[in-house]
């Protein structure tokens, strides 16, 4: 049994920031991560992090843009926290060594981003996530915070509505171990890989979210899935919104800047849900290129500016599409990018279970509502990562040490689960996974309708049955990929089920959830958050109110 006062599951930006806060408050904290922290998907974030640093900008203006962008589903009290604390968190990252791009006067440079009324996105070239991740990891290294690298948590242990730790598997030898803790923070990121086309890292299977779900914690607003408008044709690697922020244009096959028909004022810098739908519509109606893409043109920006501000996407385009954006437009198409939904948690990351916190993409706090603005997710990680750390540092003083017996029972039960999963079967992980990803892409994508969503739910149920008989035949103890995949598959199906069912039941169009059979937003019936609870027969849905403080819902126009 491994004991720490607190454990943080996940080593991306949210997890690292939370761990630093706990450590600095004198709390014994350890990080458990299935990949070394610097390999986390946070590092792939490109465009930037929002903060109202400018003299003419204000947190109120940032809050308004965020809430309007969310299609009024965000909780306005948590958005206030996010936007008020933004400047402090960004300046803190600068003090910790992040190499932000600079203006002439030496201050942090900011670029325009979609749905924002002011250039408020701070950036480090187009490798902002990478820079922030390494800065935070450096600070974790400085503090000598223990990191259990390449361990997969397989279960959260809950005793009388209190989380008392977790069971995790060491990937180096496939042995299970108890982690006993007074508080547990989930910071495990998103689930993009349940979609066929996703910008996400291959490791993003939503496993952490499914751990909370299986432990009885509700998942909130799972039907709100962000599709990024511009992902590279083929690999779907992200091409930052910063490319449009720096002046890039979108063209269809007739070389028409089609955004004028969808968002005549904001054009390419409308929020992501709107731009993604516009591109998809162009493609669906035959105005895209035959392989299913449109063109993102930055050639007019010039080589010098591209090298200075967008070097990463230039390299990505060359390496993965054979196109140099200095000379030619980049072929792009929408792809799954971010989860607005996640483990239901509050302004301090607290979930309904005592001692269990969720922050970052795996959580739904809810600051992004039905559609997240670019530059707000990196901000979300450091603001709420820190806040959860502060809260947990106080919380642990109010509880006695957890009960060992319950932890030991959980370990035995997990051991049994793993041993039962070993053996031969007709089923293949690859087939079930590929089928799931295809199903989500085709039936729970940018445009949704009843028939397709019903089909999706039926398919997921079939795959759940298939997955139950999947067995693992590889016996190797070290880095058993087959075992890892089999463990994570169940969670992928769980999340797909909550997304598809939530989308089926929500008969309106709001933000990223767009129903072609219910085109309007329906505030009278649907101004509410979805909560999905695990039951053996599939998710049970409940609803809760949205917190509205300052900004009354109105029609969203850009």
């Amino acid at each position, binding site marked *: 049994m491994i004991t720490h006062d607190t454990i943080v599951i996940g080593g991306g930006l949210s997890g690292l920031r939370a761990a630093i806060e706990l450590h600095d408050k004198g709390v014994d904290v350890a990080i458990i991560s299935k990949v070394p922290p610097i390999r*986390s*998907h946070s590092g792939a974030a490109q465009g930037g992090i929002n903060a109202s640093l400018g003299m003419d900008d204000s947190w109120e203006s940032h809050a308004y843009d965020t809430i309007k962008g969310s299609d009024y589903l965000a909780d306005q009290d948590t958005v206030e926290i996010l936007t008020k604390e933004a400047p402090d968190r960004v300046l803190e990252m600068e003090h910790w060594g992040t190499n932000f791009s*600079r203006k002439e006067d030496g201050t942090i440079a900011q670029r325009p981003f979609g749905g924002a009324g002011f250039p408020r996105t701070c950036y480090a070239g187009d490798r902002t996530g990478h820079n922030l991740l390494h800065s935070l990891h*450096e600070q974790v290294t400085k503090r000598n915070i223990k990191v259990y690298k390449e361990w997969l948590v397989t279960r959260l242990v809950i005793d009388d509505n209190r989380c008392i730790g977790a069971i995790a598997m060491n990937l180096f030898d496939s042995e299970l171990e108890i982690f006993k803790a007074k508080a547990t923070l989930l910071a495990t990121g998103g689930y993009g890989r349940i979609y066929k086309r996703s910008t996400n890292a291959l490791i993003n299977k939503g496993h952490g979210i499914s751990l909370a779900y299986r432990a009885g914690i509700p998942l909130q607003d799972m039907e709100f899935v962000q599709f990024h408008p511009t992902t590279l044709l083929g690999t779907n690697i992200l091409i930052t919104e910063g490319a449009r922020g720096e002046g890039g244009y979108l063209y269809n096959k007739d070389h028409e800047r089609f955004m004028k028909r969808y968002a005549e004022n904001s054009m390419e810098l409308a929020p992501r849900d709107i731009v993604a739908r516009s591109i998809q519509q162009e493609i669906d109606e035959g105005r895209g290129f035959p392989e299913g893409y449109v063109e993102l043109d930055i050639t007019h920006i010039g080589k010098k500016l591209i090298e200075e501000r967008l070097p*990463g996407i230039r390299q990505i385009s060359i390496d993965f599409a054979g196109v140099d954006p200095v000379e030619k437009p980049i072929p792009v198409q929408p792809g799954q990018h971010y989860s607005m939904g996640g483990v239901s948690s509050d302004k301090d990351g607290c979930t309904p279970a005592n001692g269990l916190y969720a922050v970052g993409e795996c959580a739904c706090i809810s600051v992004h509502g039905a559609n997240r603005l670019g530059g707000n997710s990196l901000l979300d990680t450091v603001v709420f990562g820190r806040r959860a750390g502060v809260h947990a540092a106080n919380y642990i003083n109010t509880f006695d040490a957890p009960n060992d017996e319950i932890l030991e029972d959980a370990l035995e039960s997990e051991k049994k689960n793993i041993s039962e999963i070993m053996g031969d079967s007709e089923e293949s992980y690859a087939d079930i996974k590929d089928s799931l990803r295809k199903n989500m892409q085709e039936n729970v994508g940018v445009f949704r309708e009843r028939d397709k969503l019903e089909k999706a739910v039926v398919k997921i149920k079939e795959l759940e049955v298939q997955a139950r008989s999947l067995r693992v035949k590889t016996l190797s103890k070290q*880095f058993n990929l*087959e075992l890892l995949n089999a463990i994570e598959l169940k969670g992928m199906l769980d999340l797909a089920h909550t997304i598809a069912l939530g989308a089926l039941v929500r008969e309106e169009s709001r933000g990223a959830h767009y129903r072609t059979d219910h085109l309007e937003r329906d505030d009278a019936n649907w101004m509410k958050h979805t909560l999905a609870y695990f039951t053996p027969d599939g998710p049970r849905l409940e609803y809760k109110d949205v917190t509205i403080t300052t900004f009354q819902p109105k029609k969203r126009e850009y």
Partner: protein
Amino acid sequence: MITLKVKRQEEDNVWYQEYEVEDRPGMTVLEALFYAQEKLDTSLTFRYACRGAVCGSCSMLINRIPRLACKMQISEMRKEPTNEGNLEVLITNKRTEIDNNVILVEPLPNLRVIRDLVVDMEPFYSLVEDIKPWLEMKENVPEKENLMDRDTQVKIEQYTNCILCALCHGSCPVAAKDKQYYGPAALAKAWRFYLDPRENEETKQERLAIVDSESGVWGCDTVYKCVAVCPKKVAPTLAINELRNRIKDKK
């Protein structure tokens, strides 16, 4: 079809295994490994994460050159020889006249193999940590950001671009024989912090003293292999030369 010839290892057993992979346009070596693992042999193992050459997980030896598997296109690999039998770690490859249908995939050198293509990265991480890779700011933290001129920001950027993939470590002939040698990545990191005007002078000098040794900048053979294999154009040897000059200036 393309043949992946993969060096496999489980404990003391070492063997080469061939996988016939159905390739398609745009396929990378990493995707070919997934094809093999998912469809042909589920026991095969390797590391991965981003698949977009930004996370540094999938470092391995491909046709005897340290590279990121996710970045290498199968179509390009067809145009080069596998260099099988060549015991040296190479940094560039020749072009073949006719299509080569075999790709040789082996674990990253200079680190112990755990299984198949997964190596023990801990010694590498530990060497980086030895140079105290974090910013120690001057006292009097400003209320706002530290001001920094653009030229300095750009100079630092070349080194903050490092993704700690360890390809440089795998290519380095000094790291191959001296386990104490900090290696190109750690030394480049040391220079990154030396360049940073936010860093306090005391820590700069302390770090300079750490690398002023045979395990540090004086251990480098200046063969520039690390510069050649770096997927992020970090140029560790240039950093090492700069650090040497600073140390000489001081003496």
